[in-house]
């Protein structure tokens, strides 16, 4: 990967560039992709795969709007919103971690990453609790299409978050080594984690609010 040769000097230039010299927008973007190009291939493809799911969901929802609305009302919007905030915060922490890494503040980066990961774990626990309550309430109630979509979307997202936690753990271990080659990996991990956040934003809107 050509990105692994990306040095810290370049990284700090890149950060400055992102921020703008005085917080203003950059005039001309640097032709560079954060992380590995392969990771972006995955992210974009994954987003398109999910788009197919969303299309099916929107179509089916239009067929029987009342049944879907009823299913939707039985979900807890409050928990969903809380989970969204959790993931957003976690995303922020990971973005800050990347910033600290670019400044070669590895200890600080690890602390931030750890906090971000902990929020991710909280997200999973809350999701699991939500499922538990739903299943306890009785599966026959949830026989409709809506709940198949609910369990599929949240289940797939759950899987993505779990994979994301594995990736964050690998990034954490990489940060412990604090060698110069790890920046691309931290960036790739951050990109993946933000994608998980991205998917949750739209899933939250579709399943809980729409």
């Amino acid at each position, binding site marked *: 990967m050509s990105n692994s040769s990306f040095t810290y000097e370049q990284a700090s230039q890149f950060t400055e560039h992102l921020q703008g010299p005085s917080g203003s927008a950059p005039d001309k973007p640097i032709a560079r992709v954060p992380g590995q190009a392969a990771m972006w291939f995955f992210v*974009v493809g994954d987003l398109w795969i999910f788009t197919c799911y969303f299309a099916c969901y929107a179509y089916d929802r239009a067929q029987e709007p009342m049944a879907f609305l009823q299913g*939707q009302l039985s979900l807890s919007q409050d928990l969903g919103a809380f989970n969204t905030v959790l993931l957003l915060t976690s995303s922020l922490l990971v973005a800050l971690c990347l910033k600290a890494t670019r400044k070669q503040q590895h200890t600080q980066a690890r*602390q931030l990453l750890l906090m971000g990961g902990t929020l991710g774990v909280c997200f999973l626990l809350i999701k699991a609790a939500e499922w538990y309550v739903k299943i306890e309430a009785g599966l026959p109630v949830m026989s409709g299409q809506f709940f198949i979509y609910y369990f599929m979307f949240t289940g797939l997202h759950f899987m993505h978050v779990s994979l994301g936690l594995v990736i964050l753990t690998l990034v954490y271990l990489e940060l412990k080594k604090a060698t110069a080659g790890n920046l691309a990996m931290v960036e790739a991990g951050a990109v993946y984690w933000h994608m998980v956040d991205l998917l949750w934003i739209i899933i939250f809107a579709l399943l809980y609010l729409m």
Partner: protein
Amino acid sequence: MNPFRNLSLFQNRLTHVWAFLVATTLASWWLGGSAHRIMEGALAQERFTTTSIIIAIAIIKMRLVIWHFMEVKACPRWLRWTCDAWLLSVAIIVLGLYRFA
């Protein structure tokens, strides 16, 4: 040690983006919560307006995450366009199918 040292949290654009994201989340949460009230009347038209706003908010949020957290704003043009094309397609596909299917 303070994990946020040297990050100038309050002047940091990432934090501003995050605050905006949380605020819009709460706004769309309030909007979606009003589904309870609309339920009885089940006005498809009114529901569509609410839905459109909620989806629009989600699209804006995703755009912000892509732009600032994923740093796509400093990426080559093809990636920026791919991401924007995706966002636009999601909006069109979801709302179009929801409205006209």
